[in-house]
């Protein structure tokens, strides 16, 4: 029986990857360092979505909103108030989580498709505010030149800053994933009715999961601002939300680390295929079709299956 806690065999590949990531800015041109940072932020965002989608079974179709709220909160706090940067950094994810709580509070009353529809409408409402409230958000133009402190405003500086917080968040997510709460959420994903019959308050669990997920999405939003020094309403648009959803499916939504892989694949496609054609989504679409037919559990799920069958 394999019920032991963390063992070193699982840990050392991750440590190796981490060391490589720390060394990369010395080895790679600045452009690649930047792309890696984009992947980190996107991976954190996709991972946060997967807390509710893959491990919670909720169709959180408009997750981008909380990413955008975190980013806007951070940018606005920095630009309009004199608060120190670290305070803005801490507060912004909580603002995203608060919005997540309000939207989630309404949505958990519904199930599956209705949950998704209500979330898209409430989320679009927030997008409309960011898009229309010109005095505050500068609408379509977005906010530019957000004053990020010097020590993290360079590409390398922001790279390390982002890497640090993404790793911290991932560790936090992993702890939650393995906790009784995480286990219970997976049970709710499989069978909500059975869960309430064993005494679990399903809606309260789902709402908690949404708040946690939106908090981490808020962190991703803040890190986006650290990297780009700007925000625009596209961050809250439903197209982005769909893209994050695809990352989870692509990487493997029943695995823990799958969405990281999904995010890396998507960002790499957008960057490197995007150079040749603006129709890079076409390739993403074809990939998605192949995925549904051949790897229904996602890339990571497929690799996991292979590893398990080799052990047997």
């Amino acid at each position, binding site marked *: *029986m*394999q*019920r*032991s*806690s963390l063992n070193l065999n699982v840990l050392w590949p991750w440590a190796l990857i981490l060391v490589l990531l720390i060394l990369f800015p010395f080895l790679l041109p600045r452009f690649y360092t930047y792309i890696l940072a984009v992947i980190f932020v996107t991976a954190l965002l996709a991972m946060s979505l997967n807390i509710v989608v893959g491990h919670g079974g909720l169709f959180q179709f408009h997750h981008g909103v909380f990413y955008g709220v975190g980013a806007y909160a951070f940018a606005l706090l920095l630009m309009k108030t004199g608060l120190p940067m670290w305070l803005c950094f801490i507060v912004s994810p909580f603002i995203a989580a608060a919005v997540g709580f309000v939207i989630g509070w309404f949505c958990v009353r519904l199930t599956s498709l209705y949950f998704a529809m209500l979330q898209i409408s409430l989320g679009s409402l927030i997008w409309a505010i960011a898009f229309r409230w010109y005095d505050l958000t500068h609408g379509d133009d977005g906010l530019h030149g957000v004053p990020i402190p010097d020590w993290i405003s360079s590409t390398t500086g922001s790279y390390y800053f982002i890497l640090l917080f993404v790793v911290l968040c991932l560790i936090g997510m992993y*702890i*939650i994933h*393995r*906790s*009784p*709460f*995480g*286990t*219970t959420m*997976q*049970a709710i*994903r*499989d*069978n909500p*009715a*059975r*869960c*309430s*019959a*064993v*005494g*679990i*308050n*399903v809606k309260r*669990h789902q709402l*908690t999961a949404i708040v*946690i997920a939106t908090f981490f999405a808020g962190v991703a939003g803040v890190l986006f601002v650290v990297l780009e020094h700007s925000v625009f309403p596209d961050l809250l648009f439903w197209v982005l939300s769909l893209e994050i959803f695809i990352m989870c499916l692509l990487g493997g939504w*029943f695995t823990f680390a799958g969405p990281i892989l999904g995010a890396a694949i998507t960002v790499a496609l957008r960057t490197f295929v995007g150079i040749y054609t603006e129709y890079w989504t076409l390739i993403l679409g074809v990939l998605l079709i192949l995925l549904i037919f051949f790897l229904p559990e996602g890339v990571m799920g497929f690799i996991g299956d292979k590893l398990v069958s080799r052990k047997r």
Partner: protein
Amino acid sequence: MLYVERVFKSFDGFMAVNGAELRVEKGQLVAVIGPNGAGKTTLFNLITGQLKPDRGRVVFNDEDMSQLPTHEICRRGIARSFQIANIFHRLTVFRNVQVSVLSRQRKSRNLFRSAHLMAVEESDRILGSVGLRDKADRIAGSLSHGDQRILEIAIALGNEPRMLVLDEPTAGMSPDETAATMSLIKRLAETQGLTILFCEHDMDVVFNTAQSIMVMHYGKTIIQAKPEEVRGNKDVQEAYLGGEGEDA
């Protein structure tokens, strides 16, 4: 322990449960029988809160439970299994039971401890008591139908219930599996002093096992009595046993 007082439930004008009554005393093994569509499953859903009665009361340990949400009823000590195997099919067998044990221990909302080290002994003991220990690391969805039904009972046991409600525990099982399941249920009732309420199609099974039998027909209670009395009752023979020509 449990009194169901003249409960009614209709679906679009069809009276599925039409004033049914039921008494379960502590430590008893009680069976509900009745032809298909007699309202047995609906009655069970009313008891464990999946459905709310239109009228009537469900009283458990002197508390009216008819308006409580499902998870609250479970916390009062009633656990159940379902007619269709109702398990967490992507989780391992062990996890299936653990989720239920964690819920009873009120630890489901713990975010920061590792679940791998929690409720392990108890979950393991329950799996042992139903004979699924050697399959603990299998993914639940890959178990045979019979084993999934047993796992259902194990999940219910994880709640450490005072009363166990089993909706056709042997549905779809082979004769061998049925015999094994019924002896398991008997054993649970005897060794753990559990109060068990179940419904069943197989007449032999019911008359061999139950201490008290309630007969339902068209959503009504015809009689609730000891097996011998039920066997000799005219109304029962007419409504059920005679009508369908099943041996009793």
